[in-house]
């Protein structure tokens, strides 16, 4: 076996496990946890297009999740439009919002950019939280919107069991991973990396850094908004505190930083580690120490940044490469 074959086999095995899990796990609770795990992996992968490749640290992506969730839910509740269409509308609106934020802020460096994005997302949350109507659209202020689970079925993006949600988010995750892979090997990927690392040198080599970042931001905000619709349809209840909160923006960044920014496997590894930690700390400390999961995330982040500043993906990919090499040597007999 050569390394290419081994990679192929590993990939097929992971896909089989991912698609087969709901056949083994019958508990709705565990399936719910898994769906949220994929949801966060998806969000972080979308975030990674800007936060990883373009080398900036956006901390306001919850705003895009909110735009996606509210757009599709309002269209569904008030006009009976299928959430699948609402999903795309939310995506387009979020793209506009993303470009609007990106235009003035991409010239800022480091913490200034992060602060500007936090300010935008928080402003958006405060608006949504304090008005009941946004023009003709009923958003219900802090009480949020509830989707009655009446006409279930694929057309309405409503299901009585968890399995359909599991497969939808899994397919979304795989799609966004493929997209990331393609971009990372394209001209845009090279330009984003170069502009993120040494903007001056990149510009002198023909890279319009601001333009590359804007394209990445547009894609990232579009994809993030799609996840917002998914979340609304999955939990059937959205309110500003749950989907436009800073907690959500921070959790995405935590997962990315711990897993490894700018790598394809990073967001997945980060979600695999942090989501279960978060869920179990909420189960065991939920009533005595709420918010314990964020403290634990902070500790993990400090440890990872100290020992593996490029995230967990680095030692793990090295481990995997060694393993592949060993298998290659054993099977070819050397």
């Amino acid at each position, binding site marked *: 076996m050569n390394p290419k074959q081994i990679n192929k086999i590993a990939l097929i095995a992971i896909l089989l496990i991912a698609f087969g899990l709901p056949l083994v796990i019958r508990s709705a609770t565990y399936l719910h946890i898994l769906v949220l795990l994929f949801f966060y992996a998806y969000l972080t992968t979308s975030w990674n297009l800007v936060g990883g490749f373009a080398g900036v640290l956006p901390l306001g992506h919850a705003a895009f999740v909110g735009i996606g969730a509210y757009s599709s839910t309002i269209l569904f509740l008030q006009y009976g439009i299928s959430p699948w269409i609402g999903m795309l509308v939310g995506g387009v609106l979020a793209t506009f919002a993303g470009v609007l934020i990106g235009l003035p802020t991409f010239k800022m460096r480091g913490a200034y950019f992060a602060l500007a994005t936090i300010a935008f997302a928080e402003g958006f949350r405060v608006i949504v939280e304090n008005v009941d109507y946004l023009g003709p659209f009923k958003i219900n202020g802090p009480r949020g919107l509830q989707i009655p689970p009446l006409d279930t079925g694929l057309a309405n993006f409503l299901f009585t069991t968890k399995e359909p949600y599991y497969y939808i988010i899994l397919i979304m995750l795989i799609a966004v991973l493929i997209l990331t892979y393609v971009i990372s090997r394209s001209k845009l990927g090279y330009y984003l990396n170069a502009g993120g690392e040494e903007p001056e040198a990149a*510009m*002198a*080599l023909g*890279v319009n850094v601001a333009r590359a970042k804007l394209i990445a931001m547009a894609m990232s905000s579009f994809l993030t908004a799609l996840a917002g619709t998914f979340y609304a349809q999955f939990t059937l209840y959205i309110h500003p505190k749950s989907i436009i909160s800073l907690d959500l923006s921070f959790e995405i960044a935590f997962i990315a930083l711990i897993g490894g920014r700018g790598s394809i496997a990073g967001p997945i590894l980060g979600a695999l580690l942090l989501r279960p930690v978060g869920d179990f700390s909420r189960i065991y400390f939920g009533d005595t120490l709420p918010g314990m999961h964020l403290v634990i995330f902070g500790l993990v982040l400090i440890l990872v940044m100290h020992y593996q500043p490029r995230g967990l993906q680095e030692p793990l990919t090295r481990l995997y490469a060694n393993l592949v090499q060993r298998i290659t040597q054993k099977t070819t007999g050397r």
Partner: protein
Amino acid sequence: MILLEVSGMTKQFGGLRAVDSLDLSIEKGQIFGLIGPNGAGKSTAFNCIAGAFAPTAGVITFNNEKINGQKPWDLCKKGLARTFQIVKPFASKSVLYNVMVASFVTTNSRSVAEEKAIKVLESLSFSDKKDILSGNLTIADRKRLEIARALATEPKLLLLDEVMAGLRPAEVDDMVQVLKTIRDQGTTIFVIEHIMRAIMALSDRIVVIQFGKKIAEGTPKEIANNENVIKAYLGEDYAVA
């Protein structure tokens, strides 16, 4: 044919006039040197020509087109490439990746960009290091990488900002050969350098500036014997010699 013409170029930073109505013109196929004591305004002049700063006054003409205030990435596409005095590699990426960023200027295809990048690396006898992380290179190799990246954009005019500073004498001789080869392949070169041995051996024509103003221009031989230049570098006392 004149490839680059600068006339009356001035760059003012607040009260400091870093470049003061500088005139020069570079013929196609020349190696043109720019020298001057520390702080004379050499790098500022480069930054204005390459689009990093817009000049306060004056006209810069490149390939019969006025390029004042155009953005660096547009100038790069028009055939004007530069290196940086303080090298700026994309440190977490391999040498090949670095050069590919540059070779993407003329193509959207990854395989074409890779092919071009490898060709450039081979021409600089650098291809054996293509998979090394650029952050782990020696200073000589980093300078070489700067040149490789600039060359991969297929420039008509190459602006080199002190590519020999910090090199050992043997490495300087190598670099002189490399630059001569690049010129022979049809690229005009505009070079800032402090190492006199190198710039004297390389240049067809040299301009000397001090406090932003041109104080001499001529062939290397003329410059070496110019009284103003000796004064600028060594002080009044040595001027008589």
